[in-house]
């Protein structure tokens, strides 16, 4: 993991002191709400329905055991004993007192963490995939460049008041698990024919009100130019992005208005002025940062021991868990383990109690090298587990409610906090997730259905990424009551697709049966072991629409 040096430390502690002063001035009435708003947002602090919410950055989803214990401590001492992991590799605390925020930030700074720029119209937390550095299909480790970008974008004075928020993701594996096409800038790192590290740059992707996949603006950008190229994009956006309407202010609208070619020309022109300047990255800096991500001291073990094989054969539940929660590792004898935060209706997706966080921190040390990852699917990952330890870890995880064998399956639901917490939401998300999870609680059946993503957003801002769920559910407001629009066919990864709306919205009570009808249609049309998304792509939406709408009394349909 990256370790702070004196500069990194000085910055986070000075930031805490600065925000402590700003909070005091706000509470004393010296700063108006309007003046305080962007200051608190850029320190991760939202005002929600019931209380302040603090969003803490987990840069590129990587946490140390000590850091996770601090998050547990914050949950226990300053919140109601739990935290919520988000789709952007952050954690949110929902019940925060403003006056205590500086103390919380101080606690975070002590373990090399912060909440800087987790909100506001600035460059947000840089994200990558949860299996960075360990995935079997990885080309290059994206974390050094992610850390370099994190530093460069942190309190970059020119770009703190952009037209709108700005999200950057980087990935470098055969499978794109970082959803880079859904970001304002998506970076794909690879080696060119000469073996040089290069970047493919995508721009203008995003979900929200106007979901658009990013478009390629540059191929083969030498990595040394990463910062200057991103700077050129940001400068063009900062100058020319719309500011008259917050719903038209994301860079995707500018790219669409100019056209990708004209936008690319603007960027190129700007970039020519700065590309060979001091922002050009040096090999020394790359090596300094990359050294922090050197692989740990793996044991040399056989890939698959006798004990592990025996457990697989004898223990059906264990084998089922291994099938979906254990992911291939670069190093023989090791695997990465996904701990599901979705045990079913008992707990909202992404929520972990303080005790669970502490348990995960312990396991990361007992079964790994003290490192934990956060996936954008809101699950936790232990990246370096020896296969011979999997059975022991699985038993512990089950005791703590973190061993549900549903990763990638229908009940591994991605959901935003929704109307229970969020002031922006049109509708609740959590009860919808729970009602579906209650309907589909037979694990054998879920495994038969296979890979299927279901995403729920409580409003058009799309924090639950409903557009890219195989099944997407969007909360909408209709004359003050909560309704839900359903989309089908969304997908993430290299074949990213935006889902299509199947028709008029449903009430909350109807959703479980709607999902049942969708699944029944899939089963009727499925060929052999065909995954859900392939069936939808093959047969189209019609059979699903017919079945879902035929089975419901018309008067229940809310015509949107």
């Amino acid at each position, binding site marked *: 993991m990256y370790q702070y040096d004196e500069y990194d430390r000085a910055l986070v502690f000075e930031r805490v002191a600065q925000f402590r002063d700003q909070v005091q001035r706000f509470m004393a009435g010296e700063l108006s709400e309007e003046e305080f708003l962007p200051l608190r947002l850029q320190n991760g602090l939202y005002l929600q329905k019931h209380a302040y919410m603090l969003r803490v950055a987990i840069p590129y989803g990587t946490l140390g055991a000590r850091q996770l214990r601090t998050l547990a401590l914050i949950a226990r001492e300053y919140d109601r004993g739990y935290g919520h992991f988000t789709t952007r590799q952050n954690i949110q605390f929902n019940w925060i007192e403003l006056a205590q925020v500086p103390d919380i930030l101080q606690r975070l700074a002590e373990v090399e963490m912060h909440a800087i720029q987790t909100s506001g119209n600035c460059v947000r937390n840089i994200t990558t995939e949860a299996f960075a550095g360990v995935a079997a299909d990885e080309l290059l480790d994206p974390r050094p460049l992610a850390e370099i970008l994190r530093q460069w974008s942190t309190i970059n004075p020119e770009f703190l*008041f952009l037209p709108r928020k700005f999200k950057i993701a980087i990935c470098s594996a055969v499978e794109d698990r970082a959803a880079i096409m859904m970001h304002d800038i998506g970076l794909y790192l690879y080696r060119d024919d000469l073996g040089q590290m290069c970047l493919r740059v995508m721009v203008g992707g995003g979900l929200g009100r106007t979901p658009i996949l990013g478009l390629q603006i540059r191929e083969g950008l030498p990595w040394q130019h990463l910062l200057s190229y991103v700077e050129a994009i940001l*400068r063009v956006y900062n100058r020319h992005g719309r500011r008259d309407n917050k719903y038209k202010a994301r860079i995707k609208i500018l790219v669409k208005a100019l056209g990708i070619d004209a936008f690319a020309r603007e960027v190129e022109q700007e970039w020519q002025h700065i590309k060979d300047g001091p922002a050009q990255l040096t090999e020394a800096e790359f090596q*300094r940062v990359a050294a922090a991500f050197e692989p740990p001291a793996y044991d040399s073990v056989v890939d698959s021991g006798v004990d592990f094989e025996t457990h697989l054969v004898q223990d059906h539940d264990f084998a089922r868990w291994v099938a979906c929660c254990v992911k291939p590792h670069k190093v023989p004898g090791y695997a990465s383990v996904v701990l599901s935060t979705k045990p079913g209706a008992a707990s909202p997706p992404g929520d972990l109690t303080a005790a669970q966080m502490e348990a995960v921190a312990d396991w990361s040390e007992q079964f790994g090298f003290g490192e934990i990852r956060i996936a954008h699917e809101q699950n936790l990952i232990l990246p370096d587990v020896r296969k011979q330890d999997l059975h022991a870890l699985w038993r512990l995880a089950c005791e703590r409610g973190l061993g549900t064998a549903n990763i990638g399956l229908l009940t591994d639901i991605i959901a935003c906090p929704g109307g229970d917490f969020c002031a922006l939401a049109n509708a609740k998300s959590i009860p919808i997730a729970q009602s579906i999870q209650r309907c589909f609680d037979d694990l054998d059946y879920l495994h038969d259905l296979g890979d299927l993503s279901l995403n729920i957003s409580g409003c058009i801002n799309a924090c639950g990424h409903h557009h890219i769920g195989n099944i997407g559910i969007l909360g909408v407001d209709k004359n003050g009551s909560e309704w839900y629009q359903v989309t089908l066919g969304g997908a993430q990864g290299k074949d990213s697709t935006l889902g299509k709306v199947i028709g008029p919205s449903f009430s909350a009570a109807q959703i479980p049966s709607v999902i049942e009808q969708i699944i029944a249609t899939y089963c009727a049309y499925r060929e052999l072991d065909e995954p859900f998304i392939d069936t939808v792509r093959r047969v189209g939406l019609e059979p699903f629409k017919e079945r879902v709408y035929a089975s419901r009394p018309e008067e229940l349909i809310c015509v949107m």
Partner: protein
Amino acid sequence: MRNVIALRSAVPTLLDDDPWQLLRDGDEPLPAGRLLVPLKVWLERHGQRPEGQDGLWLGPDDEIEPLAPLLAHLPLIAIDFPSFRDGRGYSQAYLLRTRLGWQGELRAIGDVLRDQLSHMRQCGFDSFAVREDKSAEDALKGLAGMSVLYGRSVIEPRPLFRRR
């Protein structure tokens, strides 16, 4: 103008005798003295007024590049922040200083507040007309900012990785 902080040999100084009058609207009758006028007015009056009597202020929509031939005739350039949340002025300042090589005084006007002063300073502003209902003395505390700058800026062109 009132409430102006200026960096004099890098030392922040509260001016009590700033000679500039800000003219927001070109239609009003022009007062005597040194005026800070919008680009359009400046261009109309250029050549009619003694050199150095008219300064220029830019709105966030104004382009920077066409100013290049005018720089030699300008005693001061100001950039307006209609709202402190409108960040275009930061990029305008960067371009004026770095691309056009403007060496003279660069003043932030409009919604200029204590908590943004250090960012403005990093982007090359060297005078700050603090919003008139705020205390400029209090705003002085906002100029220092943080001791660490990861990236680069107008006043520190080398990113931290070249200084680390």
